Structures are given as C-alpha cells and as structure tokens.
C-alpha cells in the first residue's frame, strides 16, 4: 500500500506576522506546507499477490524509478496549481493587504468541501468558477479525463482513507 507523503486535505495557513504596508517583505510561507515536492513513494514491499512484483499493474521495476521523477515535467505539473495560487495570493497580499487572500482562501475552502463521496467524480463547479478554469480549456480538460477513467477506486478503502481510519 502506498501513500502520499503529505496527507489528505491540505491546510492553508497564512503566517500571522506581517510588515507594514510599505514593507517589501513577501510572505509566501503560507502555502509552503502543502507543496508536494516529491513523488509518492511506493511502499517498500511489492504490491502484487504473495508479495511478488506485479509487472502487469506496476510495470518494470527499478529502485531508482520509484524514488526519482522520471520525466522533467512530472513535479512541475503536479505542483502547477499550487504554485499558481501561491504566486497569485502573495501578489494580492502585497497589493491589497491581508484580507484579500484570506477571503479568497476562505471561499476556496468552502468550495472544496462541496464534493461527492470519495470514490465518485465530483464536478468541482464552484472551485472551477472561483479559479477561472471555467473560461479556459487546457490539457487537463482534454487528456485523461477522470470522469472517463476505466478504474474506480475501491469504495470502502477510499472512504476509510478520507476519514483517516486507514
């Protein structure tokens, strides 16, 4: 069983201290905690039946493959949304003060809570509208659409994971 290095829902905190309005210090530590700067580490024991490496499901093996990202874009694509948000929030913070990103993050957190059950695909309409993704088309809408995925997570396992019972 493999897990992400960082847990379930990320916690967004903005650092409480701040400099004066004409201070230049940028405070970007708020979203640092949720930046996933690693690839999920597959567990140390193989995943197939009887502990033997399941080549059909997880492909060819090599220790290096499991620890390092294999494609130059893998990490940057994984963190892309987070980095964008981080940049936007910190510049908003510098322009308009603390209340602006706080309010927006509150709205984001509220929108993120509107979800179906863990193993079902939610439309994330509110979140998309807040982010502005409803007005543009990118590769995340064309390729690898989660609603068309052939695999569904095992319902019991996913609910337990979500509730933190696992």
């Amino acid at each position, binding site marked *: 069983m493999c897990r992400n290095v960082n847990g379930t829902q990320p916690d967004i905190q903005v650092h409480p201290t701040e400099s004066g309005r004409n201070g230049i210090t940028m405070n970007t530590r708020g979203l640092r905690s949720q930046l996933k700067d690693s690839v999920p580490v597959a567990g140390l024991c193989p995943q197939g039946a009887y502990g033997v490496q399941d080549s059909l*499901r997880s492909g060819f093996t090599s220790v290096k493959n499991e620890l390092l990202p294999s494609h130059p874009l893998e990490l940057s694509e994984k963190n892309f949304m987070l980095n964008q948000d981080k940049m936007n929030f910190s510049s908003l913070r510098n322009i308009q003060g603390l209340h602006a990103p706080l309010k927006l993050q509150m709205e984001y957190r509220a929108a993120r809570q509107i979800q179906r059950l863990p193993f079902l695909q939610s439309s994330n309409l509110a979140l998309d509208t807040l982010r502005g993704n409803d007005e543009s088309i990118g590769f995340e809408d064309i*390729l690898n659409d989660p609603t068309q995925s052939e695999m569904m997570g095992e319902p019991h396992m996913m609910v337990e994971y979500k509730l933190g019972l696992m």
Partner: protein
Amino acid sequence: MLHSAKPCEIQTGGFCFENTRRNAVLESSLSESGYKAPGARKTGTTIAGIVFKDGVILGADTRATDDMVVADKNCVKIHFIAPNIYCCGAGVAADADVTTQIMSSNVELHMLNTGRPALVTMVTRQLKQMLFRYQGQIGASLIVGGVDVTGPQLYSVYPHGSYDKLPFLTMGSGAAAAVSVFEDRFKPNMELEEAKQLVREAITAGIFCDLGSGSNVDLCVITEAGVEMLRGYDKPATKGKREGQYRYKPGTTAVLTKTVTPFPLVVVDESVQIMDTE
C-alpha cells in the same frame, strides 16, 4: 498502466507520466539490440509570414515527414484560430495541431466572455504561457498572424515560449532558405500581388533547398475585409510530362548467342484464391 497502485489519490486530468518509466526501460533495451524507438511525426516545414500594406500574408508548404519518409504529401499547416487570426505550425505535427485547436477554443471562450473580437497579442500571450509551462516538451513552433483593431500583426512563438514581433518571419527546417528571400526582397508596405509573389518565392526556396519541405505552397491572406485561404496556390514540385518516347525499338541490340535450358516442373498442388477486385 492505470492508477491501480495509488487508489487513494484524487485523479486529475492532464498529462499522466506513468508510462515514462516503462518507455525509458524499453528504449534502453531496444538500443542495446540496435533498434530505434519510433519517433513522432514532424512537419519538417517551411512556414513564413509577412506584413504588407493592408494586412498579413501567411504561407506554408504541405509536406509532413516521418524521419526520412514523406508521411503526408498534402497536409494543412495553416490553422484557424479566430475569424481574423490564423496560425502556421511547424515542429511535431500533433503538437502543432492540438495547440492551435486549444488556442482556438480559448479564443472563442474569451470572445464570448468579454464580448470583443480577439486580439493577436492575446493569442500570442496564451501560447507562450502554455509553451513555457511545458518547458519545450511540446514541440510546436508557430507563426501567428492576424488583423485586429490595432492593425496587422505577426508574431512567432518558439517551442520553449519565447516570441518575436517582426514584419516578416520564417520558421521550420526551411526557415533559412525562406528568410534569405525575404531579407533580399522585402520592402515595407508592399502591394497585395507583390507580397503574394514574395511569400510564394520564399516558400518555393524552402521547398527546393530543404529536404523536409515539399509539395505545394499554401497561402492565407488576412485583411480587414476578411480572409482568403489559397490552398495549393502554387505547385512547383509536380512531375513534368515526358515530351517524347524514350523506349528502344525491339531489334536495336543485336543478339549474339542464345541458349535454352528447360526446367522440368511437376505440379504438386493447385489452389485458387479469388481476389476481391470490387
């Protein structure tokens, strides 16, 4: 190879890097046995654009290559983005196609949202932001040209995300040949016919001097009045017609000796397979 090993992760759309490891392993084992992994189909192109008195002319050749083989003799390299903006694409064919389609959809959404006609700078900006995000892995070099409220404009965007704004531009493998024609004969504020001839000559130079470009010349003339797509404007590379008969008459060569050796063949088995000649 799907997400069976990571059932608890929220699945997002977009690029999936699961197969890169498998591909790396396969490529290394293939190269040990001396085989080459299949490559992406590139357009191996000459594309060019020019700003003339009333607007913009875009030109392109029509050959698509797969390494050293011509994959498509008459492909379209001038893509629609908005009614007043067109884009020529060079580089990997699929990347250029999909990128221009995504841009076209984004432009349409943007026009619906703002209620205004599209600007060429908007297309260029979205293109370069997207290409920079993917760090050149999307191998599409594009020339974006159009006429909007600020006038006729021409931009070139490179696969890593840089762009240039110039009165004449060429890209692709035949860019050097085409730009030499432009450098020699370009004048600002040319007339329509003169500009069309110049672009045709530039693309023809690319077709003859570059192995990756060939077949016909396509032109696209964009003015404030509208767009004129001239597909197959010039076909410099068609086979010529043979003027005379080049076969020798039977008996031209004298026969000196003749030996006949009969092969005794025995019919072992006979089977008839009817061909479908409909």
